Structure formats: structure tokens, C-alpha cells
């Protein structure tokens, strides 16, 4: 019952946010300097042909009309055509998105696998050696820009140790092993950088939960430390962590912009960068919109997971 209401409400929020997302995406790209028509026609174009193309593309209509048209197009699944590639934006994105997804998911997995146990361990041993070293580890992870970790990982694991390829992408359907070996370094580098935040959240969430009354009661019931930590505390502590994980997942999509460049991973990050560098406005709009959508949907998924983990929401206790 209440779960439906909860979802219903989240969808409502998302719709409003989505509206602003499209507005921002449109606004930001439409103040980009550089004449689209000129970019299409190239430097040799004449003034007449420029003007003709501008009219043809509808570039000299009022902005709000262009916005409405764009949104209507979006609703019909039409994101326009890339100026740079001359292909439908949607197709370009659809081709690359799964790869970035693969990278972001793998990175998030690496981060979660590293950080959640570490955070729990740190919280349980608060202010002691394990806590301090976990913090240190986390600090190292966030102390450098992600691309630098990418470079370091390449140098160490690919060039010096020659364990993994330096980069590139192979489709898993073609060559699963090759695909996975190429995934290791970028996912590792990004996962490493994401670890800190998730760990920090796990730790503080865990600390908070450990000071809850029901934990005291569990101890008063004679439960062992292990049961208390794993059964009573973690289940509660993980709930806010989910939000952070979702956030980091979408953050990973931001990180891929640079990281994909380093590992020449042909995902949406590189596409976006190309689009920005060549001022391919429809493509920029499409890319940042899609990345923003991923943010929104991963948050939405987090909200659902949240509800799944938290029976108060699942069975409606909030109203």
C-alpha cells in the first residue's frame, strides 16, 4: 500500500527534477559559443548557405520554441542528430552507454566490496589502529584526481607488472576474458577513488547505529558482538549507505569523462568530451541529459532499495 504511495511520490519528484534537468541541459548548451551551422558546413561555407542552414535547423527561432521542440522530440525518443558524427544522438548514446555502465557498475562494485567491510571494521574498532589505517587508506584514495589513479594504475599494473592491458575496450560478447581483463584497471582505479566516501559513510552510519538503543538492548539480551554488528547494526547502517552508493555510482559517470579518456574506453564519457570539444550541441545535450538521467534513476533505485531495506517505508509507517 504505502510502498506504492512512496514510489508514486518519488516519481512525482523525479518528474519535476527532470523538467529542471532538461531546462538546465538546454540552457547550458544554448549559450555555448560557436555557430552550429558553421560547424556543419565547415570553414568554407558562404554566408547564404550558413543562413539557409540556420533557418533549416530552426536556429533563429525564439529559444523557448526551440526548447519546447527539443522536449517534444525527446518525448518521442528523438534526441536530434549529431553534428559531428552525422548520426542520431540516441543511437550514438545507446551504443556507448552500456560500456560506461559496465565500467561504472564494476567500479561501484569494487568500491562497495572494499569499503563496506572496511567501514564496518573501522566503526567497530573506533579510534583504534584499524580505524586509523582504514581512514588513511580512504584518504589516499580521494587525495588524487581520478585520472591520476588511472595513470598510476596503468604504469604499475600494465607497464611495469604487465598484468593487464593498458586500456581499450572489447565487447564481453566477443571475448569475455579480454573484456574483463580490460575492465580491471579502469574499474579498479575508479573504485579505489570512490572507496573513501562509501567507507566514510558506512563508518559514521555504523557508529550512529551502534549507539542506538536497540543495540544496547541486543547486548542486554546477551547477543554476541558478531551478531550485533552483522545482524542488528549493519542492516540498519546500510540504509543511508545505499544513498551514498547510488550517488557514487552516478558520480562514477562523471569520473568516466576523464577516466575513459585515460583508458580510451569508448563510452559515454569520451563521447561527451568529443561533443564538448567539437561543440556538437545536440550531442552535448543528449549526453549530459543521459548522464543526469542516470543520476536520477540511480537515486530512484536507491530510494526503492531504501524502501526495501527499511520496513518502515516498505509497510508504511511514515504517515
Amino acid at each position: 500500500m504505502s510502498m506504492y504511495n512512496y514510489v508514486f511520490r518519488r516519481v512525482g519528484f523525479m518528474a519535476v527534477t527532470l523538467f529542471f534537468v532538461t531546462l538546465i541541459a538546454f540552457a547550458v548548451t544554448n549559450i555555448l559559443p560557436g555557430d552550429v551551422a558553421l560547424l556543419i558546413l565547415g570553414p568554407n561555407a558562404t554566408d547564404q548557405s550558413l543562413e539557409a542552414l540556420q533557418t533549416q535547423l530552426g536556429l533563429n527561432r525564439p529559444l523557448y520554441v526551440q526548447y519546447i521542440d527539443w522536449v517534444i522530440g525527446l518525448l518521442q525518443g528523438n534526441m536530434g542528430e549529431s553534428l559531428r558524427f552525422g548520426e542520431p544522438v540516441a543511437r550514438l548514446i545507446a551504443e556507448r552507454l552500456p560500456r560506461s555502465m559496465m565500467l561504472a557498475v564494476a567500479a561501484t562494485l569494487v568500491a562497495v566490496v572494499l569499503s563496506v567491510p572496511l567501514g564496518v571494521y573501522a566503526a567497530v574498532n573506533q579510534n583504534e589502529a584499524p580505524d586509523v589505517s582504514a581512514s588513511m587508506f580512504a584518504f589516499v584514495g580521494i587525495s588524487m584526481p581520478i585520472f591520476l589513479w588511472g595513470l598510476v594504475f596503468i604504469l604499475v599494473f600494465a607497464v611495469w607488472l604487465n598484468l593487464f592491458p593498458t586500456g581499450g575496450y572489447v565487447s564481453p560478447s566477443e571475448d569475455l576474458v579480454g573484456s574483463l581483463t580490460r575492465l580491471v584497471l579502469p574499474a579498479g582505479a575508479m573504485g579505489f577513488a570512490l572507496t573513501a566516501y562509501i567507507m566514510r559513510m558506512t563508518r559514521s552510519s555504523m557508529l550512529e547505529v551502534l549507539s542506538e538503543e536497540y543495540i544496547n538492548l541486543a547486548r542486554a539480551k546477551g547477543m554476541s558482538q558478531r551478531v550485533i554488528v552483522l545482524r542488528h547494526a549493519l542492516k540498519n547502517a546500510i540504509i543511508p549507505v545505499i544513498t551514498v552508493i547510488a550517488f557514487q555510482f552516478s558520480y562514477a559517470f562523471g569520473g568516466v569523462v576523464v577516466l575513459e579518456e585515460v583508458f580510451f574506453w569508448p563510452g559515454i564519457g569520451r563521447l561527451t568530451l568529443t561533443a564538448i570539444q567539437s561543440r556538437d550541441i545536440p550531442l552535448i545535450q543528449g549526453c549530459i541529459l543521459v548522464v543526469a538521467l542516470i543520476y536520477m534513476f540511480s537515486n530512484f533505485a536507491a530510494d526503492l532499495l531504501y524502501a526495501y531495506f527499511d520496513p518502515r517505508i516498505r509497510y508504511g509507517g511514515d504517515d
Partner: protein
Amino acid sequence: TGGGADDGTTEDSGSSGGSDGTESTDTTTASGGKQGGTLQWGGAVPVQGLDPHIDTSAASKRVLENIYEEVVALQDDYSIQPHLAESMEESDDNTLLTFNLREGVTFHNGTEMTSEDVLASYERVQNGDYLATGFFDHVEELRAPDDYTFEVQLTEPFAPFLAKMATAELSVMPAENAEKDMVEEPIGTGPYKFESREIETSFTMTRNEDYWGASDEDGPFIDTIVKSEVPDPSVRLQSFLADEYDFINGIAPKDVSRVEQAPDVRFEKQFPKSLVYLGLNCDVAPFDDKDARLALDYAIDKEKVAEAALYGTGQTTATPATPGSPWVNPDIEPRPRDLDKAQEHLDAAGMSDGYTATFKIPQSYPTQVQAAEVIAADAAEVGINLEIQQITWSTWLSDVYSNRDFQATTSSYLALWYPDVSFYKFLHPNGAFFFTNWVNEDYNALVEEARTIYDEQERAELYHQATEILHEDRAGHLFLWWQPSLYGAGSQYKGDIGAPDGSTLQFADNWLDR
């Protein structure tokens, strides 16, 4: 706009269609000695458009030159010889060009090439809006009197036309394709066939089994060529050294010594590839003042700039003419650094304390960024404050080139083996790539005249004079250096690397010896 262009300006840009597909699987079949194998190529700049008539980028040409061919072709000695034509004739007044086409040349789609196809390809350019369209202002008529004869009737003697015919801008495609505005799947007659590509990711070509020119000596040998797009030079080099590629292009000058020292690696250098220059906008202050330009010229130590950026792989110059060609004026040298003279010119310009100007550098060229830093540091010593702004290539195109909204910039031309391009396209107000706003009527008259002259000696004389004017008047193009193409290949990679024009690649006579 007048005048076509030979090569584009740099190795970027372009807008054109393309197609996509998935990568093919590697199948290495060795049938006899050199034949077979898959070449893994770590490429510097991603392949751009696939329409040879419109795409200006060298990156596209590096692959398209293996797929498309032209009626005539450039040779290593910069001479032009018939290629798809068996022979050619020029009338005495140089206005009628007659070509006897080869028989038995087939396109990749299996149809035979005839003069219809050549005619259709040329008419496409003539009637469309392509790179070489401007050259057809000098064409009176195109004719295909029979299946294997093709004629070009010029309105007047126009030397650059034949040279243009040797470039991809006039490559031959099937008539049915020539009717299309945009070619998405390239079909040519060349030794390699287009297989598939994924934009910004990879490009695959396969050997053309039915290539008309196939031979045991000249290939083509390699079955499949896979170009992986790896724009970052460090990453590319690292991957190459980790044996992930047989071959890479675009080695950064700073890494040359590393590649040279690496075991089992072939280092190849092809000089010259391109000319890098400092562009000054002669329409706006401060560079509308010749003395201000000269002050900057004297302030810069060009040897040092070239050394800083190129690590000894390049060569400074004061002329746009290709080194070693007859067009080079041997008497003109780059101005040596002389701070006193610089100050004199500043005084003359009424800017004794120097001046400030923005310095827009396309960020995708690390050598130019490095050079800019040294130039700015040198200039600062006489009070000339150049504020570096890194900009993207498209910003460069729209702001600097198109709107001419800049004060100083750097850019490059690809190897300009044909002098008209060097002297006309960039420096004549009617040139296709004129943007520094430097106008000198004497100079213009000289380069215009040169276009109609077929005698090498005579033309060279005109270009030598033009160079003098460029130098004395301190044109908006302040030439910095000529730089080479730098390639690395595994020791298994055999054959000559590169193409006569210095910037593209021809793989036909290359093979893999694994």
C-alpha cells in the same frame, strides 16, 4: 571562396558522415610469404568523415588513401604520375588534359571503373560544395569521350589543377555513389576495403583481393588493418611498448629517444610533415602595426622554441615552401633573437613598454602549447605579454579562423608539397584558409601569376620574391618550424612506412613478419 585546398590545416576537425559497425574478429591466415596477418595500429587522431571529397582531416586521409585512388598520384620525388590512368597528355597550351584510364580496375563493390565513374566523381565536386570545388572555376568542360578516356578542358593555364587531381579531394568513386551528397560507406578501387568502424574507437580495413595493382612485390599483403583510436600520446606509447600494437603514429617528440632506445622497435621519421606557425591578426591592435610584429619576431628565439617543442626532430624556417623543394628561397633565414632590435621596433610602434595580447592555442597540440609557453616567456622579456588561452579545436575554428576574433595564435599546415597551397591558400586574401588579415598587393600579384606558370624555374623565382615580401613585411604568419611524422613499429612490421606527402599512410607494400 576561391581556390581549393590541398590538405586541411591540422589533423583534427572535419564534419562529415560516417557509418558504424562492429569490429571484426581477427583471423590470421597466411597464404604465402608476406601475405596475411592482422595489423594492430594504435592511431593518434580518430578517423573523421569518410567522404574523401569533403573531409579535410589527415586522420581520415590516413585510411582513405588506402581505399580510394586518384587518376594521378604523387611520387616520392613530388612528381605527379598517372595512376588510375595508364597515361596522360597535356596540350601545349596547358589547357587540355587527356587521361587514358586503366582497364580492368574494379571497385570494391565489384563493378568495373570506367570514365563514367571518373566523370561523375569530378562533376560531383564541380557542382557541389566540396573542398576542391573552387578549382573548377578554371575548368571549362569535363569529358568522357569513351569508356577509358577522360578529358579536362581548362579555361586558361592553371598549374595547380593537376596537383589537386593527385589528392583525395578528387578521388574516384563509383558513379552511383557520386550522386549522393554524403558517402557513408567508402567504396573505392584501392588496395584496402572498408570493413567497419566505430566512431572514435576503431576503424577496420581488409585486403582487396581483386586489387588491380596487386603483385608479389608491392602487395597488398596484410589481411586486416585494425586502427584503434588512442588519442593520448603517452597512453598510446605505453600500450605500444606493452606490445599491444604493431604500429603507432604520432609519437610525441619528447618520447623519440625512448622509442629509439626500446629493443625490437622500429622508429620511423618522415620529414617534413607539417609547418607550424605563429598567426598574428594584422587587422587589430597591436599586430596591425608592422613594428609590433617585428618586435615580437625579434623577441623570439626560434631555435629554442623548436627545440623545446620538438627535441631536435624539427627544423626552423622562414618560408612556407617545403624544405628541399625548389620553392625555398635560400637567402631568407628566420630572424635571430635580438632584444635591442625588438625594443627599437617597440619604440617605433610607440609601445616602448611593450604590449599585451591574448594568445589562443588549440589545446590538442601539446607541442604548440609548449612552444607557446616558451614564446610567451621570451616575449615577456621585452615587455610583450602574451596571455595563453587553450581552446578547443572547434573554438579555434569558429573564433580564430571564422570570426577572426583573435590577436595571436598558433596553428599548422600539413606538408605542402605543392607550392600553390603554401603561398596562396593561407596567405592570399582569396585563399580558402586566409585569416591573419595580412594583405600585400605585390605579394598577391606574385602568387596569382605563379599559378599560371608551368616552368619550375620561373615559378620558383616568383615564390622566392613572394617569400621576401612575407619576411620583410612580417606577414601575419610567423613561421616557426617544420616537423616530421614520427612512427613506431614492432620489428615484425616490414616495408616502408608512410606516403610521399609525409602526412598520410599507405599500407599496400607493408607486411607482417611474425
